């Protein structure tokens, strides 16, 4: 089970897709945060409360 837990480092980039915001003209904006991990995590299993 230990394999299922990964320490997530601080984000490597914070890309404000719409960098258009100030106090007078405020609109919704998209934000993308990318965390780069030390290993591939695509095929790592999941755990739930019932598993433990």
């Amino acid at each position, binding site marked *: 089970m230990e394999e299922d837990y990964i320490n*997530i480092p601080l984000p490597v980039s914070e890309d404000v*897709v*719409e960098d*258009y*915001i100030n106090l007078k*003209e*405020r*609109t*919704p*904006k*998209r*934000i*993308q*945060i*990318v*965390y*780069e*991990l*030390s*290993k*591939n*995590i*695509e095929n790592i299993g999941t755990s739930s409360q019932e598993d433990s």
Partner: protein
Amino acid sequence: MNSPKILKISARVPKKTPERISQGDIFSNIEIIEKIEVKGNKLIFNKISFPYVVCLNQECDLENDFNETQNRDRKLLHLAIAPAFNFEQYLSGTHWGCIYEQNQGGKRKDTAIKAIMDNQNPRYHYLKFPEKDKPELIVDFKHFFTINRDSLYEQLNKRLFSLDDLFRENLSQRFCNYVSRIGLPVEIIDECNETDKR
């Protein structure tokens, strides 16, 4: 003798705001997660930050949730909120920023805009406070969404102000009417055949 000037309002802040989240609370800069992607060794969080949102839950549900000391199902998992926009930006059609293409917008004297400002358009709720330092807002019920309850409590410092009784009930009732509306089908008329029949 001059007659008193009457100011038409559609919102008022309460004299006291409770410690807990209330119906009609207006928050600023609330972020929601759109999706989380895993690509190789990258974990990508896509979020949207809303400049203004308003809480739509029933007041009694919020009170019961706050007073629940055990982990029973009176506690809420998510809260219903709707985005609100600066009304001037709504008029310019740019209120969604880059999320959607620019809307048509309008002018205050337009019949359709007057209907919105009179809260006669079911989709929108117009908020005009008597205080000049409060923003003139428009709530869009169509785009309501939910946010994790604990997440919103963690951002309680982003609460700008709340709505007083009556005004928040008006908001709630209009939201309920909007989401419970029944869209009737349209009838397509073949004008050529109609002409033949005559």
